[in-house]
């Protein structure tokens, strides 16, 4: 991955919008092209991430940019859709197939949910249980094994809400500082998880242009080159206690193994990271990933949360843009929003949430509990 760089990034703010997918995608894509100092004529291929897509939606949406004949591939891997699409683009640039590739993610989770629940009566055993329950089961076990308290989850969520307030692209931007107490007081979804510890439904789009690293310097000599130094994707390995029926939260070992692959590929360790984005659809996930990604030792997450280690200005800031909980999680574009944030941070363009001197960032996404994708970005 040594020769791959992020040439440009763009987003359509996440939120509840009465705007078609094609319009959000076009706006995010044009923003990324402008950011890269490129025109759509320069794009040699596109990887499109979109969940629950009607037939040919990737090709149809790409026509918004013009009909140049470029190859278009649709990638889908649940919440990890945008991350998986980004990986495909990086691999093609690394392989020398293309010099400039567009990765475009978009979704309208509001209409997606309506489509998937029409008819209501469950046809399968797994349909009877709502997703929030699966993450709550993780939290209950953590309380039993490690003495975690709901207050720890509330502190993570409040941090992410407050980070979101500093991000103009975030879906949730609280006007007043968010407190753990308020998070705890919000409605209970699946004990011990409350609504404010959970990501919102929403719509949005995000785009990254990836290409040969030497192009980055030529196109924008005014700013640092942001390289993609690792791209790792793994699915589950069987272990006793594995759940086969219905959506799952993802075996812990999968994130450990995928992270090891990424660290090895990038020749860095968790201690080298300046910032991290994780799949924090529910606050318990972020807590678990602190340990599984090696940001702290097993069993020490609670102590580190109390110390403020993962806050902006802390030892290693996590979910700096608000994470899924505050920045939002429309589906297809979510993994690309992580790339957007990390790229801005490494360039020193992240405004009020900027981490001083950030050089290396990690982006982690889970898809349906069965896929883990990790990218590591590094500034020259």
């Amino acid at each position, binding site marked *: 991955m040594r020769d791959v760089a992020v040439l440009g990034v763009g987003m359509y703010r996440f939120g509840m919008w009465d705007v078609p997918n094609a319009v959000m995608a076009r706006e995010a894509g044009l923003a990324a092209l402008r950011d890269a100092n490129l025109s759509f004529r320069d794009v040699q291929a596109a990887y499109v991430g979109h969940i629950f897509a009607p037939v040919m939606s990737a090709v149809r949406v790409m026509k918004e940019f013009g009909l140049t004949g470029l190859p278009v591939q649709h990638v889908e891997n649940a919440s990890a859709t945008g991350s998986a699409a980004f990986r495909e683009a990086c691999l093609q640039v690394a392989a020398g197939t293309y010099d400039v590739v567009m990765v475009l993610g978009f979704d309208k989770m509001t209409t997606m949910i309506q489509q998937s629940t029409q008819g209501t009566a469950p046809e399968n*055993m797994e349909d009877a249980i709502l997703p929030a329950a699966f993450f709550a089961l993780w939290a209950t076990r953590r309380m039993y094994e490690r003495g975690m308290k709901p207050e720890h989850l509330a502190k993570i969520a409040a941090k992410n809400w407050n980070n979101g307030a500093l991000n103009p692209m975030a879906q949730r931007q609280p006007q007043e500082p968010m407190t753990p107490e308020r998070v705890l007081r919000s409605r209970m979804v699946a004990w011990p998880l409350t609504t404010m510890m959970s990501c919102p439904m929403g719509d949005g789009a995000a785009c990254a242009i990836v290409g040969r690293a030497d192009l980055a310097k030529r196109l924008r000599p005014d700013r640092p080159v942001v390289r993609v130094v690792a791209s790792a994707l793994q699915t589950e390995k069987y272990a006793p206690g594995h759940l086969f029926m219905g959506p799952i939260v993802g075996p812990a070992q999968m994130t450990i193994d995928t992270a090891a692959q990424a660290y090895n590929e990038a020749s860095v360790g968790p201690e080298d990271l300046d910032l991290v984005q994780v799949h924090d659809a529910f606050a318990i996930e972020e807590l678990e990933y602190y340990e599984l990604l090696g940001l702290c030792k097993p069993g020490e997450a609670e102590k580190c949360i109390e110390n403020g280690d993962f806050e902006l200005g802390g030892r290693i800031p996590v979910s700096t843009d608000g994470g899924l909980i505050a920045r939002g999680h429309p589906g297809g574009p979510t993994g690309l929003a992580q790339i957007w944030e990390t790229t801005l941070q490494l360039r020193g363009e992240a405004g009020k949430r900027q981490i001083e001197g950030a050089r290396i960032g990690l982006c982690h996404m889970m898809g349906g509990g069965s896929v883990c994708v990790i990218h590591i970005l590094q500034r020259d």
Partner: protein
Amino acid sequence: MGEKRKIPIKAGYFTIPENASDPPRLLGSRCQRCGEHYFPRRAICAKASCLAEDLVDVELGPQGTLYSFTFVHMPLFGSSNLEHMDGYGVGQIDLPEGPRVQLPLAGRKEDYYIGQPLIAELDKLREEGDADVVIVRFRPVAEGGA
């Protein structure tokens, strides 16, 4: 008694005992090469070191041990049973044969603790014509044994 005919929410996942007081059994598989058990049924052993194609059907449970649990504050999706309207429990239950299953729980959150012995029962989701559509859920084993 007027017991209605019971039909499973999906065939092939659990038994419906003829005697209504008997607990249902979960329908799983056992690998004849390495001995690993699975729920639900599968054709090929999932262990990377095995991958044998000689799995046989077995009945699992009906008892198990609670690994983790939660209580969801929303109606049980697709159920018309009044008991499910103000929420429902979900548990991860380790079966004695090995598999961990994830299924609804009876009762209230206060009824449960990790490590607790549980037993399977049938739970009515809704009526369909002259039959009750049922799912398997778990409940605490009564004091003094199952």
